[in-house]
């Protein structure tokens, strides 16, 4: 059963700041959703292989041939912060 500690742990992994209200609400909602999802455990899945992908396609690759890259201006155009032609991020603490 999912609880508030689980929500906090997962939110940390996912780098999501949740306020205490959100944690409580989400724990309650997730408990309901996961209870519904728990239905899957009714099934006997011995010998059933997983489907990661519905396509029967394999070996899609590309040749090792360079294509033009973005201009630096385009690469940095959307960046929230830039320094010396690089993406700038806050100190790592």
């Amino acid at each position, binding site marked *: 059963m999912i609880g508030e500690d689980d929500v906090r742990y997962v939110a940390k992994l996912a780098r999501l700041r949740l306020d205490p209200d959100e944690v409580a609400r989400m724990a309650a909602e997730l408990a309901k959703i996961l209870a519904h999802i728990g239905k899957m455990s009714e099934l006997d899945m011995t010998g059933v292989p997983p489907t990661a992908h519905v396509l029967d396609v394999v*070996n*899609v*690759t*590309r*040749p*090792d041939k*360079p294509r033009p*890259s973005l201009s*630096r201006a385009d690469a940095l155009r959307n960046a929230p912060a830039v320094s010396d*032609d690089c993406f700038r991020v806050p100190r790592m603490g």
Partner: protein
Amino acid sequence: MSAWEPVIGLEMHVELDTRTKMFCACEVTKGDEPNLHTCPKCLAHPGALPVVNERAVEYAARIALALNCSVQPRNIFHRKNYFYPDLPKAYQISQYDEPLAVDGWFEYWVDDEKLGCRINRVHMEEDAAKLVHAGGDAGRIAGSDFSMVDFNRGGTPLIEIVSEPDIPSPEAAREFLQQLRNLVIELGVSECNMEEGQIRWDANISVRPEGSAELGTRTELKNMNSFRYLQQALEAEIPRQVEIIEAGGRIDLETLHFDPDTGSTTPLRSKEEAHDYRYFPEPDLVPLVIDPDWVEGLRATQPELPAARAERFMSQYSLSRADALVLGSSHALAAFYEEVVALGAGAKPVANWTMGEYLAHLNAAGLEAGHGHVTAERLAKLVKLVEDGTVSTSSGKDVFARMIAERAEPEEIVERHGLGQISDMSKLKAAVARVVADNPAQVEQYRGGKQQVLGFFVGQIMKATGGRANPQLVNELLRKALDG
């Protein structure tokens, strides 16, 4: 007190020298200005999708084959999820439970002893971008004001090689890595440039009572960037662990940092959270199904690798294992050596000259074997001049040095500087007579049974002839004069 033995495993990351990145067509470059080689894919823009670089798969398979791994018929990429500014998708596309290749082994030499190490797996992934920390104590994370990300390197094809913990000593770990690096370079799939970080490794180490089959708790040494530091770090870690265990303590499974200045290992500040990478199959890529014929094709076109070449040199040229390993270590050096021998010079003397004067010259000049003014033809001529007695060994070294300075053929140099060996009996007899006459005390000692004094006389004659006297003839004449 019982004796302890270390158990070491290595995990290596090697950047491949493909023209483009692992999952996009941006060029892989070195030393360019920041953020000139990016695209929606390697910047992880919304909606961008990866597509596998076929040459990266080939290069990775070549490494796997050289490590005697079995290339798996089915390959799956997984997402390894974690946040870091150098990882734009916040997941690394890597391989997990269905990697490229498994179950290999690598043979390497420590002095004259052959060691084997099992290779657990070889898998494909993508490299992270470059982070530069600015402000504060510049260059380090701690105390920096902010960091900057350059995505030129981000997405470069990367191969991870994981060994089993089969390495018995720090020295062996160092040899393992050096010889593995030679092997990868020989495959032509990476230059393994260490300054550029093209090869990087982590080591894990534990200790156990000698002869025990169980493994102790290991610690991990990260961020190694020189062979010497690797060895030093492991040498420092062994007594640290032994001390803890003997004091009744327990080794923590933790990551350590080696400080070359203090020569000691210290735990890295523990992360706030345990790693929980949430691996799952990458839905943007389809499986790679490896065709066995393709693998056989690669196997048939693998270049000769250092270990095999050393074996061949030992049997073909009757070289010692040590010599064969040195001469066989790189394709360029081996080719040069074989070319000189093919020109008619003796295999053993050519080996000595190549490993001695020639390698020293390459190192000093920063050249690769086969380049520079000492060509295979010139070295072959020089070795033959020494072999047939035209010049003495010591004059030969002089000739070698002048070949570089004067860019001339060895016989011209001998001629120009009068470096030919003196084999003229009348000249040598006169020199012998003079030395014997000038050193009565030593003559007395010799005749009193002190045979070693002979060396003194030879030295005097060499000095008098500028090293050019034929040493065999001098020996003969001296014995005659002194014994007679």
